[in-house]
């Protein structure tokens, strides 16, 4: 595919006046939550790009991270992690007695109120309504010794993983008992440095973590103990962020090579989704699990009878084309398009695409990464490479970009009947920008 343009669609306004760290798109609603150094979380609409509400009063220091719980009906549940070493759980009814579908409109409605834009307060004409519209502080998860850096919900939403500068990862089970009770399931302390990021496998209960100790580790439950199943070494600096490939992902191919895509899918089914990581060493690396047929059979069994020795062998599939001049703080692998985006201290947004190697002739030389297969000498038709298809310098003018995320496009400018994606970037000056890709 030829190069594409990254176009600025809108800012999310009004912004925080202090550094913002991360913006998390809601799994179903057209809203995002942004974490700020001003100790608050701002919720914005992706429909009109305005502030909907501000969550305050829960954290005593910078809010570093947040994540929406998936598969919650009629309610939005947000987990927030702060430098104050605690994790907050917040709840808000999506719609009060108006049926599930109106949830999205409800968010839009609130934002029409100008007061909401100013300071995040919703209209206080009806006290009962206001109570129901507000974010309800549910519970504070206390356990970490120092700054919480990242939080992530398991695909089912049952488990919450949190990590900290204290080098530990905690797994909490949401008991969903109506009383906001969480139970500590595991505390893993194998990392030798701050744990910067945690991310769950898209479908399995397998957790990946990235650390200041330059490693990435994978964790699974074995009988009833959580333990490390792999330690991935390759980065030469702090690993800032990791993300998983979507389960259905297939590298880009010409329409004519649908059979190639099918072959690729079959060959990758055994190894499962890959993992992408970015680092202070200014590289982005791709990791793949070595397929083990035996292991695959075990995985199909209920986890309770999985034998010990669940160690997995992961290999570095390659390094993506170098496109950043300073630390890379975040990568996001689109679950819809398979495109990959990265941002960092150089203020640049880069978008990469994976495609089959034999279709890459028209791509500029030197930019592509070949994921050479060690086991076969002859080039396989399934061999893929990564190309930089778009870059944007100074995306937040002179400021560092801390985070990037893909979200479903929801504004009026989108094409009817077509599912489009936008990029949401979060920067040091508090600005959050929404971008489209001109594919």
């Amino acid at each position, binding site marked *: 595919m030829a190069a594409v343009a990254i176009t600025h669609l809108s800012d999310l306004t009004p912004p925080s006046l202090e550094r913002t760290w991360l913006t998390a798109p809601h799994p179903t609603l057209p809203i995002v939550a942004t974490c700020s150094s001003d100790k608050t979380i701002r919720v914005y609409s992706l429909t009109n790009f305005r502030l909907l509400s501000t969550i305050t009063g829960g954290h005593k220091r*910078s809010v570093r991270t947040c994540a929406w719980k998936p598969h919650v009906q009629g309610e939005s549940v947000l987990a927030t992690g702060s430098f104050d070493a605690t994790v907050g759980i917040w709840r808000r009814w999506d719609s009060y007695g108006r049926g599930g579908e109106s949830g999205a409109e409800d968010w839009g409605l609130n934002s029409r109120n100008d007061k909401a834009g100013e300071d995040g307060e919703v209209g206080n004409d009806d006290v009962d309504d206001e109570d129901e519209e507000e974010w309800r502080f549910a519970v504070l998860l206390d356990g970490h010794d120092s700054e919480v850096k990242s939080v992530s919900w398991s695909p089912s939403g049952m488990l919450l993983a949190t990590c900290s500068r204290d080098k530990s990862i905690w797994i909490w089970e949401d008991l969903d008992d109506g009383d906001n009770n969480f139970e500590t399931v595991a505390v893993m302390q194998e990392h030798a440095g*701050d744990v910067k990021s945690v991310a769950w496998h898209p479908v399995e209960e397998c957790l990946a973590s990235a650390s200041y100790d330059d490693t990435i580790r994978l964790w699974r439950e074995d009988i009833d103990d959580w333990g490390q199943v792999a330690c991935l070494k390759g980065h030469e600096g*702090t690993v800032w962020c990791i993300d998983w490939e979507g389960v259905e992902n297939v590298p880009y191919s010409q329409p004519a090579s649908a059979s190639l895509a099918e072959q690729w899918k079959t060959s990758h089914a055994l190894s499962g989704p890959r993992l992408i990581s970015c680092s*202070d060493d200014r590289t982005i690396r791709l990791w793949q699990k070595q397929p083990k047929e035996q292991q695959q059979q075990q995985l199909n069994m209920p986890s309770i009878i999985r034998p010990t020795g669940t160690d997995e062998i992961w290999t570095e599939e390659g390094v993506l084309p170098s496109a950043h001049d*300073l630390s890379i703080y975040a990568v996001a692998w689109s679950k819809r398009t398979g495109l990959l985006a990265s941002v960092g201290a150089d203020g640049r947004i880069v978008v990469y695409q994976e495609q089959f190697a034999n279709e890459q002739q028209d791509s500029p030389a030197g930019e592509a990464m070949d994921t050479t297969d060690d086991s076969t000498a002859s080039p396989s038709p399934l061999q893929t490479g990564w190309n930089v298809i778009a870059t944007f*310098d100074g995306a937040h003018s002179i400021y560092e970009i801390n985070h990037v995320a893909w979200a479903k496009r929801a504004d009026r400018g989108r094409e009817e009947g077509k599912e489009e994606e936008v990029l949401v970037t979060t920067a040091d000056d508090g600005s959050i920008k929404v971008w489209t890709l001109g594919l």
Partner: protein
Amino acid sequence: MASEIQNSNPTILNAADLPTRLRPGAPRKSGAYGTGIFTSALPSATNANDPFASCLYLSETSDSEDELMEEPIDEQEIYDLISTISDPEHPISLGALAVVSLPDISIKPSLPNVPESPLRTVTVLITPTITHCSLATVIGLGVRVRLEQSLPPRFRVDVRIKEGTHSTADEVNKQLADKERVAAALENGTLMGVIAKMLETCQ
């Protein structure tokens, strides 16, 4: 922080030996004021109590300040910002202790491949007074905080221990380069108390 002084007898440089922009520029400046157009036209300007003279003086400085704003920030300016920071152990400046020195400061474009980018990386190599000084991290943090607070945001601050001058330099460097750790440190009251004390002597 440390209960015992780690280096009780550090080498201290004479203030006159420290690099400054003023000395080479001073003769020219005094010449301009001494024999320039203002002195000849307004002899009373030499009288410091003359309100008109002080008025002239003020307009003169504000002009030169404007020039400074347009002037690119150079190594000497970085040095001036950080050399007056006090050592956490001694009431002596980092400049006098030669913890920071002019030749160990450099300013380079952050994105060499993007010529139009205004981003600049300021690299400061610090030389701890003794090779095992556990306060190296605090000193480095003080330098980083001072520069981040004083420089425009287009500057990326890179503070590192000078090679071969510290036993755990890599560890200290990694910590000083970690944006998240530095941000968290700025919210740590105890640590910021120490840093604030070090920066008291600036300006």
